[in-house]
């Protein structure tokens, strides 16, 4: 306080004279304001006290309110419990009552799904388009199916069953093998096959259309199909594919003759070339031998000696001998025959060689084919037979071609050989005859 006063004094020093009267005033002011504050405090106190009483009352009221609300809550909770209990009872009742029906609807939905899958690939769908959409609705809807839908499902099932036992004909648009659409009378045999104009059709499930097979079965089955189309009554034999198109689709995949020959590769072509060459050569030889034989027959019949055939030349050689003795004549004739024989036997060894080489080339093709097969096995393993197929088909096709070439060539060789032997024999006989005639003179 002393310090404070000191500081106050020091501060006041410059103005001490002017303001010393104000200090008393300040004192009085302080005193007065102390009194005012005390009064205000009293008023506040009174206010607080009053307020306190009011709060107490409010608290009381709130507590009353709380009690009321709690009671209400209790009431509502018991109500809720009761409701839940009732709901559970009702649900149990519902489940009890609709239990079997729910299963039934599930089965109906599943049946519709299964039937749809069947009908998608069924050839009968070509005759009755638009069946799938109905089934789609039943199979995919979450709601319970209607009576109408259920009846439709039943009808479709029954229809499929009944129609699969029938052979019927109907007009529809089909696709030709080249892909153009055309109107045709189609005969459907149960759910197995459909035929139009004596050709087998297949059912394209993507478009729901029938399409002609690019490659048809053997003629004898196609003839049966023709018979079926023209038949009016009575049992008719016909070829059906009980696998519903699997065998017919395999038929398309099997290669035809040219594709088959292509599988033989370069060795196959070599074999075929040799075979063609041998065939032509053998036939030419055969024709020439036949012509020679005919000329020789003429020569045997006539007295005129013509030089255009071996027999004529041999006889001419005999005539030239003139009055030589028999032994010289025999030698001359032998010589003449020896000259003729190579021309008659020409080409035989060539044909025989080709007939022997063809199976050997086939064997070569087999070995190269097996080599490529084993290469693909070492690369891909034995899991997929399709990867090995090209090597194996090369192996088999070359063997087949080799045999196909060798068998006719052997046959032709035998013909050529027997014919030329016959001609040589005739020469021998006739020369002996000439000698005898001379000796008989």
């Amino acid at each position, binding site marked *: 306080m002393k310090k404070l006063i000191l500081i106050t004094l020091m501060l006041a020093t410059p103005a001490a004279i002017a303001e010393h009267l104000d200090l008393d005033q300040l004192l009085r002011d302080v005193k007065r304001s102390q009194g005012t504050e005390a009064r205000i405090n009293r008023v506040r106190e009174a206010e607080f006290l009053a307020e306190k009483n009011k709060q107490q009352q409010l608290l009381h009221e709130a507590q009353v309110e709380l009690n009321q609300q709690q009671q209400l809550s209790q009431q509502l909770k018991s109500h809720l419990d009761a409701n839940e209990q009732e709901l559970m009872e009702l649900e149990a009742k519902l489940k009890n009552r609709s239990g079997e029906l729910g299963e039934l609807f599930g089965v109906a939905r599943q049946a519709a799904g299964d039937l749809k899958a069947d009908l998608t690939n069924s050839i009968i769908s070509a005759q009755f388009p638009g069946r799938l959409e109905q089934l789609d609705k039943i199979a995919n809807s979450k709601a319970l199916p209607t009576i109408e839908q259920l009846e439709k499902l039943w009808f479709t099932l029954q229809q499929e069953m009944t129609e699969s036992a029938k052979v019927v004909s109907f007009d529809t648009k089909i696709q030709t093998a080249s892909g153009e659409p055309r109107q045709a009378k189609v005969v459907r045999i149960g759910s197995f096959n459909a035929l139009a104009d004596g050709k087998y059709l297949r059912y394209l499930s993507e478009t729901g259309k029938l399409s002609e097979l690019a490659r048809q079965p053997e003629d004898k089955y196609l003839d049966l199909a023709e018979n079926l189309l023209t038949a009016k009554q009575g049992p008719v034999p016909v070829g059906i594919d009980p696998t519903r198109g699997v065998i017919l689709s*395999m038929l398309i995949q099997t290669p035809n003759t040219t594709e*088959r020959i292509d599988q033989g590769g370069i060795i196959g072509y070599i074999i075929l070339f040799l075979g063609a060459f041998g065939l032509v050569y053998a036939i030419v030889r055969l024709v020439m031998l036949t012509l020679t034989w005919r000329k020789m027959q003429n020569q045997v019949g006539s007295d005129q000696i013509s030089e255009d055939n071996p027999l004529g030349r041999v006889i001419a050689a005999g005539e030239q001998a003139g009055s030589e003795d028999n032994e010289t004549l025999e030698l001359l004739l032998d010589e003449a025959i020896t000259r003729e024989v190579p021309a008659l036997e020409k080409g035989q060894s060539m044909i025989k060689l080709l007939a022997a080489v063809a199976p050997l080339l086939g064997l070569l093709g087999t070995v190269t084919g097996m080599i490529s097969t084993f290469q693909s096995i070492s690369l891909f393993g034995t899991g997929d*037979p399709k990867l090995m197929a090209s090597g194996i088909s090369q192996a088999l096709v070359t*063997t087949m071609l080799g045999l196909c070439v060798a068998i006719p060539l*052997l046959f032709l060789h*035998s013909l050529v050989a027997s014919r030329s032997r016959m001609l040589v024999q005739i020469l*021998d*006989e006739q020369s002996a005859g000439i000698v*005898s005639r001379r000796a008989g003179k």
Partner: protein
Amino acid sequence: MDIITTQLDLIQRFLHAGGSVLWFILLVSVGLWCLIIERLLFFRFSYPQLREHWLGLWRQRSDKRSQHARHIRTGIISEAQITMSKNIAVIKMLVSICPLMGLLGTVTGMIHVFDVMAVTGSGNARAMADGVSQATIPTMAGMVIAIAGLYFSKLIEERVSDETHHLSDLLQNH
């Protein structure tokens, strides 16, 4: 009648199971047996007359010792030999073709099997059975025909050789 149709049906089924090669084998076997039967009938009926004819030719001759006579004799024997061994070359050729045709059938059958394998995979043995029967039946048929044909062709060859010897004996003695 019924039995005949049943048998025909069986034959047809057999031919069908063997594939197209079996038809060629059938053709070859029919040709082979025709030739064999022709030869057997020839030896049974025609040959005795022909032999008498040749013997007669020889008997008519007064001169049987000269060189000329020897030529005639050789001519007769050679003619007889040619007449007897006619078609034997064809028979032998057909016999040798039969196993080749069987082999061809095996190969085409195996091609069929591999076709089926390419489509269905190697799991389906039943689908391959058709090709296997196409492979085995022609082989068997070719073998059976070749063995039977071989026996008869040897038989005929023996007969030709025997008859030639016999004939030359007869010509010598007279």
